[in-house]
Each structure stands twice: as C-alpha cells, then as structure tokens.
C-alpha cells in the first residue's frame, strides 16, 4: 500500500512537471505583456519591468527560473495585480470555492445515492422512471441557467436565501445547490445501474433465502457493494465541479478561484492562468489518489499494489 502510494506520488510529480512545462510554453506563445499601457512607459521603466518579470532572459532561462520557483511554491507575480504573488491570490480566494465545492459534493453524493437507490429498488415502476427523468434533467440543464433560476425564484421572489454576495454560510447554499445538481444526477444514474446489478446477484438471493428482511439485505449487502463503484466516480466529479464553479461564482458574486480564473482569462493574466492550471491539476490528482485509496479500504477485494497506475 505505502509502496503503491509512493509510486503514485512519484507519477504525480512527473505529470505535474510536464503539465507545468507545457503550460509555460503555451503561455509564452501568447500575445500581451504585464503592462497595461506599454506605449507610455519609458525604455528605462520597461527594462526594469522586464527584469522584474524575468522577461529579458532567453526563454529557456525563464523556464528554469519558473520551475525552480515552482518548487518553492512560488507561482510568480500576477500581471493584473501589481506586486501580488499568484500563490497568495489563490490562497485568499480558496476558501469560498472549497466551501461551496465541498457542500455541493456532499449534497450531490447523498441525494444522488438516495435517488439512485430508490430507483433501483423500485426498478421498472413509475418511481424508477421519475428518478431517471430527474437525473437526466439534472445533467441536461447547464448550471448557469440553473443558478439564474434559483437566484430569481428562491432568493429574489420567495426570499428563502440571500440573493448573492459572500456574507456568511447562508450565502453558500444556493451556489452549492446549483453546483450539486450535475454530480447528483450522475451519481444517481451510476448508483441505479450498480444497484440493479447487485440486486440481481446470487448473494442477494442467498441473503433473502436466509430469511433476512429486505431492509437487512439492502443495508448489509446491496448498499455497500453498490457504493464501491460509485466512489470511483466521485473523485473526477469533484474536480469537474470546477466547470460549474467558473460560472456559478460569477452569477452569485462569490470571491472564489473560479471567478478569478475567468477574469484572468479575460485580462490575459498568464502567470495566474498558469498558477491556477497547476493548482487545479494538483487538486484533481490528489482527488483521484484519495479515491483510489478509499476504494481499497472499502472493497477488500482490491489490492492497490496489484493495480495498474490508472
């Protein structure tokens, strides 16, 4: 197990190195400079600025410097904010994103598993159809449409929640719900399929034959066994929450990293774009690793050491 984790972490670092390199060279190909009005800068100022951003050196040197700094957790300086390190920019904006992301995953997983389970137990009844329909609808409505609807009806019309802004925990509810719907739907669909499989398997028959009640059967055998595969998709889904957070944070005016990312794109703030890319990749890989470890804990049949790296 430890050996496996070490190996995985080694691969993670290698992957990160490649991701960082590729993004570095991609960003170097882009037009634009850190300076908003280059025309008005004197040659002396430009020289000093280029020196500060290291732009006067050959690209390979810039690359080496960037990589070495990266090792120290230094993502460089934002183009958009003067003298502001990208890492501190990410840190100040991390908390809101983490909170709504985590809440969305909790809501999504719990309700998704419930919905999927209900559908599977009532397979081929109207309850199943309804659950399927709800989960399909969940993956068919973009989160930005959903966000606007939630904001308008639940917050503006019915005054149930704060409309937007970031004032305390209540403000995180609506964005979390808007984000939760897509993972909820996907987990529900997955859960239903897995649970139907499990319900059809022999050991369930055996459990029934042993005289266990339906409740016992479901809790003891079915739920646990169908949860295992569900865990595998929770990792990637958590990372994909990002897709939603980019838009949801904008709609609800949340000072999160998704909102920052969109802005960095708009303002060509390349160091921040790079920093966030690397940051997101780390998050993603860590999530996958945690998933795999969890998987081995829950399912004794899986031995991580025997498993391929993917």
């Amino acid at each position, binding site marked *: 197990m430890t050996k496996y984790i070490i190996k995985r972490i080694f*691969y*993670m670092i290698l*992957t*990160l190195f*490649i*991701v960082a390199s590729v*993004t570095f060279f*991609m960003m170097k*190909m*882009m037009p634009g400079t850190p300076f908003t009005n280059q025309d008005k800068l004197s040659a002396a100022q430009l020289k000093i600025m280029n020196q500060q951003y290291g732009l006067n050196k050959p690209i390979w040197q810039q690359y080496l410097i960037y990589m070495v700094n990266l090792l120290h957790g230094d993502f460089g300086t934002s183009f958009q904010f003067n003298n502001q390190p990208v890492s501190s920019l990410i840190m100040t904006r991390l908390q809101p994103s983490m909170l709504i992301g985590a809440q969305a995953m909790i809501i999504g997983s719990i309700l998704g598993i419930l919905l999927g389970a209900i559908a599977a137990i009532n397979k081929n009844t109207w309850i199943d159809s309804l659950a399927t329909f709800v989960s*399909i*609808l969940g*993956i*068919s*409505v*973009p989160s*930005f*449409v959903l966000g*606007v609807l939630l904001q*308008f009806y639940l917050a503006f019309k019915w005054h149930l929640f704060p409309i937007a802004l970031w004032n305390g925990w209540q403000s995180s509810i609506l964005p979390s719900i808007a984000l939760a719907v897509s993972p909820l739907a996907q987990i529900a669909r997955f859960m239903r399929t897995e649970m*139907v499989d499990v319900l059809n398997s022999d050991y369930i028959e055996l459990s029934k034959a042993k005289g266990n009640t339906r409740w016992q059967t479901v809790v003891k055998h079915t739920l646990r066994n169908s949860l295992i595969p569900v865990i595998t998709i929770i990792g990637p889904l958590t*990372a*994909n929450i*990002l*897709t939603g957070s*980019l*838009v949801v944070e904008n709609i609800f005016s949340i000072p999160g990293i998704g909102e920052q990312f*969109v802005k960095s*794109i*708009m303002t060509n703030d390349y160091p921040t*774009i790079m920093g*966030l*890319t690397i940051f*997101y*990749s780390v998050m*993603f*890989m860590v999530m*996958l690793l945690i998933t795999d470890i969890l998987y081995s804990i829950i399912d004794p049949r899986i031995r991580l050491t025997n498993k391929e*790296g*993917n």
Partner: protein
Amino acid sequence: MADIKITADSFKKITSDQSENQEKISAPSLTFFQDAVRRLRKDKVAVVSFFVLIIIMIVAFAAPVLSPHDPNAQNPDYANLPPRIANTNIPGFRGRIKNSAGIVTNPYETNNVPKNRTYVLGTDYLGRDLFSRILYGTRLSLIIAFIATLVDLIIGLPYGIISGWKGGTVDLILQRIIEIISSVPNLIVAILLLLVLKPGLTSIILAIAFSSWVTMARLIRAQTLQLKEQEYILASITIGESPMRIARKHLIPNLSSTIIIQTMFSIPSAIFFEAFLSFIGIGIPAPNASLGTLLSDGQKAFRFLPYQMWYPALVLCILMIAFNLFADGLRDAFDPKSE
C-alpha cells in the same frame, strides 16, 4: 383398471420432417446488430428519443429553408420584442410582456411594428428573429458536436487500438500520456487551447475534441485488450493476417458497440461544453449563434425577457435528454446481459 397392452401399434413412427422441425430455428437468424436493433425497438423511451432527435436534426439542418427571417439581420428598432404570432390570439404569443414595473405592455405597439409581422419566439437585443437564431444555433451546436466527436473518434480509436494491441512499452508510454492529459481538468485543457488558437469554429471543435478523446481511447484500449485474447484473433494471427487487416476486419466491428455508445454520450457533452465556453466568453464568435451563445445572452436578459432564455434552454434540454435517453437505450440494447 383397464388393461393396457403395449403393442407395436402403440408406437407411431415420426416422420423425418417432424424431427427437422424441432431443430429448426423458427425466428430468422439475426446478426448481433440486428439483434441489438430488435431490442432497441422494444425500448419505447429509446424509440421516442430517436424520433425526437431525428426531428430536431431535420428541422435544424433545414434551417435555411425553415427560418422565417435572416438570423443575422438586425433591426434595432424592433429589439427585444416578445413572442407573437400575428393575427392570432394564442396565450404566450400575443406580443405582451411585463415591464420592469410589472405592468403588462405591448412593445409591438410602442415600437410601431406592422400588424402582420410575426416573431414566433420574439427578437433579441439587435432585433434579430430569435426563432431563426435558435434554428441556426441548434444546427451550429450539432455541427460542432458531431465534428468534435468525429475528431475525438479519429484520435481516440487508433490510439486505443494501438495501445491495447501493441501492449508492453508502447502501451505504457501511451497510457502515461493519457494520464497526463487527464490529470488536467477538461475545461482547463479546452480553455488553454482556445487561448493559444485563434478564436473561431475550428478552434472550438479542436478544443472540445482534444479534451474528450481520452475517454474514448481508454474504452477502446480496454475493449481491445479483451478482444486480443479471443480465439478468432489468435486464429487470424496464426494464418498471418496483417495487423491492419485484423484491426479492420475483426477489431473495429467488434468494437463498434463501444464506439457507438461512447459517441452517443460524447455528442451531448460536446454540446454542453460549447455552451459553457460561450458563457465564459470564449465561444463562437459573433454574429453566429449557437445554443451556448443564445443561452448566455438569454441568461443575462432573464429578469425582464425570460423568453430569451427559456426557448434556447428548452431546445438544449430536449436535445440533451433525447441524446442521453437514446444512448441509454443503445447501451442496454448492445449489452444483452442487462434487463
């Protein structure tokens, strides 16, 4: 109790004809595909979805014929008109809308729009006909999705087959590459590509395809690994068939169900992806419309002109639901184990 005597007469000789009948398969012999199609046909939901998709596609691709107005023709004097069908009185299509004070108004009258002018789904901020834009937008979204999926197939299929077939070092390297790409979230990959490439249709298609081919390649590889162990493949190798021929004659046909199902799931996610890119402002360039750009424009106007968001959203949802349900049906049909 009657005495039963068994004599030779008690036995009847069966005709040869009868024994043949027993062995005979009465149903017509079906290939795997025909069988899948038969199962698919029984799935009502899938059939309905299939027809919904066909109708949407026909309507979308017939946009140049069907759309009542030029989708890009501006008429700012007639901007933001609500839906109206001229000379009728159908609720929701009377050309009335609540203004900011909550009073129902008729912008057609205030803007002196001719009485016989019909904007079935209203107009947008430049006075362009929303119905025509939705038709063209759906078409563009479908085109993007189809081509992106095709590109993703063109990369993913050979990649997966080679990786699975060759095994060993080749597989190891190819798998590491996949791992690296998939350790960056899809959206980021797409955004980075769009930043580097010139904005436009091709870039969007490439960005979407590039961020989604990995899943295809993985599935194909897994399937190839399984197929490789099959006797008939071993047989072909033994008789010295070239790998290309094996791939063409045996692998691809047997992979087809995986390919079809994955394609069916890729298309809706490509449509969705394009919508996201449009929303964050790096989608299709103006003045072209896609479902994504229509939705993101509509979303901004939702407070007062809800129809500008509802109609594109409705089309997108129906499209997504139909694709997903049809793909579900396909998966069930191709997998005889289930159901």
